[in-house]
Every structure is written in structure tokens, then in C-alpha cells.
């Protein structure tokens, strides 16, 4: 164990009446709280305060640039009677669920493919992470162009492969638009899964595979009974991360569809944005954003507790 020097400091300071400021500052609790005071005050002011203020806003009728007045839960009641709100809720869950599942399965595939010996592996890994590190809005604009109604390169390639002209309207058809934003979210997020899971795979001791092989396990069984159980904690953490940020996604939909066509791709974040920033109804917008809170809080608490434990 480590030797700590506090007991000596305490003994030395004890006989004197006036403890010197230096010694007082050196106490662990004093030093810690003084050190943390600035960042904690900052977070209280710019996260804590807006959070509470957002809850107060959601209970007000508050047009932009005007004083608000308290209306209780009216905004939430309005939300629950709004058919678009329910559409948004369903969209958000479909989007989050489908994209997460695809990223998990695809990411695992990527990790397994990468977990072999081959040349230029580090270069390949660096290239594969590009979709994840490039600013989302900029790569999403490229997708917007790739799915352009008139000049979609995707469609031109598909037509080249024999699909009838003019090819699908990827962002104009409600069902296809949802499909498209799910695929593009997957494109961006999959490398994060893949590289993180790869790091997990590399920590699996080879002896375990050897032992399993000696016991007669085939490839699938080794994966199912050795790899998967050992990866489970990492899969869980990555998934929780990804669910939180997919659930509250904004950029991708804002750039590709603005929530359209006919709210088919509207998510909580984009809908709250439209109401608050487009229609200027800050209170109602805040109430839509806050309906994300129960699900998010559950996920955040689960992940925080899990991270704390490990």
C-alpha cells in the first residue's frame, strides 16, 4: 500500500493555535474543493441552470422575445394530443432501434474481420474510422448529394446494374427516407463500434481459444461461448453510448430531410427545434425536448452506474 503523509502533517500542525494557510490549503478536502470550484461552478451555470430553466420553460406559454406565463402541464397535454408528436416518438424509437442493431451487428463483423493478421492493418484501421471523425454535417452533405433526386450516384450505379429508371426516391418517399437516415447513421457510427470491439477482441487471451479448440469447439462455438461472453461488457457500454446519442440525434436529419417528407423522419430533437426555433414557441419546444428525459435519464443512470462499477 502507499504511504500517505497526512498524519505527520496533522501532528505537526496540532500544537500550534493558528494553523498556517499553507497547511490548511494542503488538506485533501480543502485542496480538492478549491481545485474543483471553478469547473463545478461553470457546469452549474451552463448545464445545471439551463436544465432547471428548461423544466420551468416547459411549464410556460413562452413565445420568443416575450414574457412567459405559467400554464402548468398544458404544453405536455398539448403534446400528447398532437398526432405528429406520436409519429415523432415512433420515429425516434424505430430510428434508434434499427440503427443501433445494425451498428452492433456490423461493428462486430468489422471487428472480427479486422482481428486477423494482415499487412497495412493500422492504415486500414485509420481509414475505417474516417466516417466517425469527419464532422457529421459535412459527410452528411455528401450523402445528400449521393441521394439527390436527379443526379443520385447511388441510383445511377443501381440503374447500371439493371434497376429500372429513374430509381428510388431515397429521401422523398416516407419509408425510404427513414431507411436512408438509418443507413447513414449506421455508416457514421459503425466504425466506433468496430474499433472499440476490436480493442476488446484483442484482450481475449489466445489460450482460451486453444482450450476451446482442444475441447472440440468449432468456429461458431468458439465465438458463441468464448468471444461473445468476454465482449459482453464492452458491447453493453458501446451500445448504451450509441443509443443515447442516436436517440437525441439532430444533425443528420436536419441536413438530409428536415424531418420530412410529412414528418416521416421527424425525431424529438428536430421537432423540438422546429417548434422552438421555427415557430418561436420556446415553452412548447422545451416540453417536446423534455419528453426525451425519462428514457434518456434511465439510460444515463444505467451507463453511469455501470461505468462506476468497472
Amino acid at each position, binding site marked *: 500500500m502507499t504511504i500517505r503523509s497526512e498524519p505527520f502533517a496533522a501532528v505537526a500542525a496540532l500544537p500550534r493555535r493558528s494553523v498556517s494557510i499553507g497547511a490548511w490549503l494542503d488538506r485533501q478536502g480543502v485542496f480538492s474543493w478549491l481545485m474543483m470550484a471553478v469547473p463545478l461552478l461553470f457546469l452549474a451555470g451552463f448545464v445545471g*441552470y439551463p*436544465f432547471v430553466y*428548461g423544466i420551468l420553460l416547459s411549464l410556460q406559454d413562452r413565445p420568443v422575445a416575450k414574457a412567459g406565463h405559467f400554464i402548468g402541464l398544458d404544453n405536455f397535454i398539448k403534446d400528447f394530443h398532437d398526432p405528429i408528436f406520436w409519429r415523432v416518438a415512433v420515429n425516434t424509437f424505430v430510428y434508434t432501434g434499427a440503427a443501433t442493431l445494425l451498428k452492433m451487428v456490423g461493428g462486430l463483423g468489422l471487428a472480427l474481420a479486422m482481428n486477423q493478421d494482415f499487412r497495412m492493418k493500422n492504415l486500414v484501421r485509420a481509414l475505417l474510422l474516417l466516417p466517425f471523425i469527419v464532422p457529421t454535417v*459535412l*459527410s452528411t452533405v455528401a450523402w445528400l448529394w449521393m441521394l439527390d433526386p436527379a443526379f443520385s450516384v447511388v441510383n445511377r450505379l443501381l440503374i447500371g446494374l439493371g434497376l429500372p429508371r429513374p430509381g428510388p426516391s431515397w429521401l422523398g418517399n416516407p419509408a425510404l427516407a427513414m431507411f436512408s437516415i438509418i443507413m447513414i447513421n449506421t455508416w457514421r457510427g459503425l466504425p466506433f463500434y468496430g474499433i472499440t470491439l476490436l480493442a476488446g477482441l484483442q484482450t481475449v487471451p489466445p489460450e482460451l481459444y486453444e482450450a476451446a479448440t482442444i475441447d472440440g469447439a468449432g468456429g461458431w462455438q468458439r465465438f458463441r461461448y468464448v468471444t461473445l461472453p468476454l465482449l459482453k461488457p464492452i458491447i453493453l457500454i458501446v451500445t448504451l*453510448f450509441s443509443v443515447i446519442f442516436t436517440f437525441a440525434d439532430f444533425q443528420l436529419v436536419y441536413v438530409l430531410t428536415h424531418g420530412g417528407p410529412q414528418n416521416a423522419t421527424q425525431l424529438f430533437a428536430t421537432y423540438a427545434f422546429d417548434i422552438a426555433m421555427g415557430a418561436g414557441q*420556446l415553452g412548447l419546444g422545451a416540453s417536446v425536448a423534455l419528453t426525451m428525459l425519462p428514457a434518456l435519464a434511465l439510460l444515463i443512470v444505467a451507463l453511469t452506474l455501470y461505468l*462506476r462499477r468497472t
Partner: protein
Amino acid sequence: MVTGRSRAEQVVRVWLPVGFFLVVALFPFYWMAITSIKPNSELYNRQLMPLLIRNPTLKHYIDLLSQTHFLLWTWNTMLVAVTSTAISLVLGVMLAYPLARMRFAGAGLIAMTVAAIYLVPQPLLFIPLADLINRLDLGNTLTAVILTYPTMLVPFCAWLLLGYFKTVPMELEEAARIDGASRLQTMRRIFLPLCVPGFISAGIFAFTLSQNEFLYALIFLTKSAVRTVPVGVIAELIRGDVFYWGQLMAGALLGSIPVALIYSFFVEHYVAGLTSGSVKG
């Protein structure tokens, strides 16, 4: 030792799947690049094979740089990213060091709070924050984003550094303490110089996150002169229903270069941070 059979096997087992992932991951960037150097006559001609280019031109880049505020946006983006990253690293250290090294009442609670704040997504806060920024009279100033980006970056840096700090052995600090150094001296002179790799990881992440940020910049910055690249590209290169695809792709590519460049220099740090940040905490 590579026999014909095992080489064929290598191709099937490694390069088929890896190649598939590579093509899917990289095609949008290829398309960005090739669009940005195609003349409009080729871009909007459906008879030509789209994947190739006949007469490359830099016209879109010249137009982008001369007709829009792209260079100004790039400067704004850099300024904001560097400043908010620096602020976040300093504040992050001030949170992480006590949490990693000191014993005091409330440490566990603070650590959990920091982790939870890191996970709060922006859409939960943007409406009240917009009102707050208005009341502080900071609308259309870079200060608005320099102040709000650290709300995501401080908890993030603190969390990543906390994990890193715990891996640094304590002996040197203990020796300094026995020699009579104060806690502040020990931290600044002995401990922090040991943590440069951790700062690089956290710094790169914070930098890429601020380059990536869109929602706050979209709401707080509505004048062209103060915009960042993502908002400028979306708000000003898409004019109504008219798309300037050549310029848009040139802007998207140029806007991605700073991040890609920094990332390519520090890719090992990045991957280490990525995996330790989420896996080890």
C-alpha cells in the same frame, strides 16, 4: 511460408470483408473529392459515367474561397475549437486530479455527476441555453459557442483524464510530498508533466468534437461573419432549392481536412482514447 492456398484463403477471409467495409466507408469521400473537381457540364450530365472525371477543374474551390466567407468560417471554427479545447483541458484537469488522487467526502457523487453530464445530449439543453445566451446578449458572437462547447467538453475531458490519471504511478508524487512540496506544486511540477499523452488524447477528442458541433452554432450564430464551417456550408451554400454541389463538396472536403490531418498524426492516441474512454472509464 505463404502457399497458394493460404494466400487465396487470406484474400477471402481478410480482404473480402475488409475491402467491403473500406469501400462503403470511403466512397462518400471519393465522391466528395471527385464532385469538387468536376466542371458543371460533367456534374449535371447524366450520359457520362459518374465515377470518372474528364476535365478536372479547380473552379469550385476558387468560387468557394472568393464568393463565400469560407476562409472566415474556417478561421472561426479553428479559433472556437482551439479555445474551447484549451478551456476544457484546464477545467477538466481541475476536476479529474482531485477525483483521481484525493480522498474527500463527496468524491463519488462528483465523479458520477460529471459522467452523467457528459452523457446529456445537447437537444435536451439547447432551448433554455438559447434563451440564456440571448439574455447575456451573446447572440452572434463566438463567445457564445466558446462558452457553451465546454459544457460537453469539460465532463468529457475530465472523464477521459480521470481514467488516464489513475494509471499514473503515485510514487513520484509521494516522494515530492515527503520532500515538502505543497499539493499544488506536486500536481503542477511532478504530476502534470507525466500526463502529456493523456492530454493529447483528450485534446484531440475535444478538438474533433468542437469541429463537429452543429446545433449550438446553428442557433447562436446567424450572421455569416461569425459562422463556423458546418453551419456556413449548410446555411449559405444551400440557397433555397438551388444546390451548388461543386462548391458544397469542395467546402465539405476542405472543412474535413483539419480534423483528418490532426487525426492522422495522432491516430494511436485517438484509438487509445476511444477504447479507454468508453471501456475503462
